């Protein structure tokens, strides 16, 4: 009985992603800008996993929170001259989390197609609002050329080689991952899994289903906001693309490809997708879209649990021999 209850214990291979992350810093010094983008995307996908993979809420509008965090940092820097990065992260998390709390409380009264559509609407609403209030947000062109104070006053953002950006993103990802991992193994996280597996049953055991969903949605939004903030810190600009359907659909695809509800699916999916996209999409963009589309159709039909799901299936087949 005791080992069953010990699911949350750390296993040795859980150190691997972080070791690999640090190794990349030394092994690929010229690819750190790309690496930083990958880290930001992993964090974004991780936040989506909390609502989608664990709470089972299908959303096409998660970029709303990524964008909220990004614009918070951008606007603080541009209009208030507030360029301290760590407090910017906190502000981004708070703003995005608040928007997530409000929109979740209101949207999660619906489900199915209506909910999906409303998540799209919320994101489109924010996107057009950013377009309209261009005095605040820089409109279509956004706010380019932002620069930020050194992290903790010590580590300057390295515009040429992205060294501090990469390590900064890695550190933030690590901190957020610790939070998500703890949440997932907590009773709260287990109840989210219960809600996803059988919402009827959860009501019948007296769980406050909607409250749990809204809280999960808000936390996930805050994390997505942090990802958006790191994005702006690292790249120095923000524009409407942080709020678009492309980014929202992209992170959904990434999470599914890696495997949702698996904590590390975000890592696998983001690395796989972005490496492939980086190499193939530049050369043959239309062929990339065609291949991606076909891949998605195949995944939906045959491999809905992504890479992790396929690994599970293989493992089961081998141990059955």
């Amino acid at each position, binding site marked *: *009985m005791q080992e069953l209850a010990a699911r*949350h214990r750390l296993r040795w291979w859980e150190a691997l992603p972080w070791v690999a992350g640090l190794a990349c810093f030394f092994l690929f010094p010229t690819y750190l800008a790309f690496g930083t983008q990958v880290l930001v995307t992993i964090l974004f996908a991780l936040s989506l996993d909390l609502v989608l993979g664990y709470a089972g809420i299908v959303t096409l509008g998660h970029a709303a929170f990524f964008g909220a965090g990004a614009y918070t940092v951008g606007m603080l820097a541009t209009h208030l001259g507030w360029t301290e990065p760590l407090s910017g992260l906190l502000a981004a998390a708070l703003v995005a989390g608040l928007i997530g709390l409000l929109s979740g409380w209101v949207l999660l009264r619906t489900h199915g197609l209506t909910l999906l559509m409303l998540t799209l609407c919320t994101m489109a609403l924010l996107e057009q609002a950013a377009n309209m209030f261009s005095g605040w947000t820089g409109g279509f062109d956004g706010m380019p050329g932002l620069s930020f104070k050194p992290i903790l006053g010590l580590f300057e953002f390295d515009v040429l080689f992205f060294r501090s950006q990469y390590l900064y993103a890695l550190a933030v990802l690590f901190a957020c991952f610790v939070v998500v991992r703890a949440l997932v193994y*907590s009773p709260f996280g*287990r109840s989210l899994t219960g809600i996803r*597996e059988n919402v009827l049953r959860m009501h019948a055991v*007296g769980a406050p289903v909607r409250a749990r969903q809204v809280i999960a949605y808000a936390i996930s939004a805050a994390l997505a906001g942090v990802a958006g903030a790191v994005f702006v810190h690292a790249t120095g600009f923000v524009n409407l693309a942080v709020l678009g359907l492309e980014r929202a659909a992209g992170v959904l695809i990434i999470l599914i490809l890696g495997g949702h509800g698996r904590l590390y699916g975000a890592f696998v999916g983001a690395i796989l997708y972005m490496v492939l996209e980086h190499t193939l999409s530049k050369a043959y963009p239309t062929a990339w879209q065609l291949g991606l589309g076909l891949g998605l159709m195949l995944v939906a039909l045959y491999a809905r649990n992504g890479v992790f799901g396929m690994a599970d299936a293989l493992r089961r087949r081998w141990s059955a021999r």
Partner: protein
Amino acid sequence: MSAGAAASARPQGGALLETRALCRNFGALQVANNVDFRLEAGARHALIGPNGAGKTTFINLLTGVLAPSSGQVLLDGEDVTRLAQARRVKRGIARTFQINQLFRGLSVLENVCIAVAERMGAGGGMLRPAGRRTEVVEEAARLLDTLRLSADAGSRVAELPYGRQRLVEIAIALGLSPRVLLLDEPAAGIPSAESHILLDAIAGLPREIAVLIIEHDMDLVFRFAQRITVMVGGSVFAEGTPAEIAANREVRAVYLGTALDA
């Protein structure tokens, strides 16, 4: 450790669970027709009737899954008609479903742990891992033990034979430490070779709990029930002790005289 520790609002000699003139209709279709029903503490009560008589609907009305068109549901003298399902669970009503409603991808232990955690108010905790909540895990393990499911504790529910899944369904309901337990056709789908496990489980239910069981298996009904209610077309057709019901000619007519020769 039971739910609903508030002082009983029940008047002297009142029932633990009661409905008064409970009605529910879908347009012209009357699925519950002026149902007056009483369940005493410690009762062993069976609800029988032909298919489509409205028995599961009645359970849905009792638990709050369905709202009545009129009438009242009272728990311990308190009017709970307007209360949502989750709140009634906290007050002490638990049910099992006719078709298993389990967390199929999770282990048996986890299934019961989720229920126990909710009952203990620990379901929303974010700080400590679920596995470290020893009170929850031990209580869940104890429940699995009483239902002889300990060997399956680590197996995924989806991998269990249907009969054992049915037991998990009961374990979850018991994990909620209910005062009232509503079992919707617990024997349904269990092959007769395994039904003794279920019978033992039901016989072993704590004496203080009021149990209402919907069943078609007359063997089980007559072995278990102290009182039987017969429901036909959404209305209470007859009620009494097993001997009275068995002797009731109209009840026999309704069942075509087959199953009641116990």
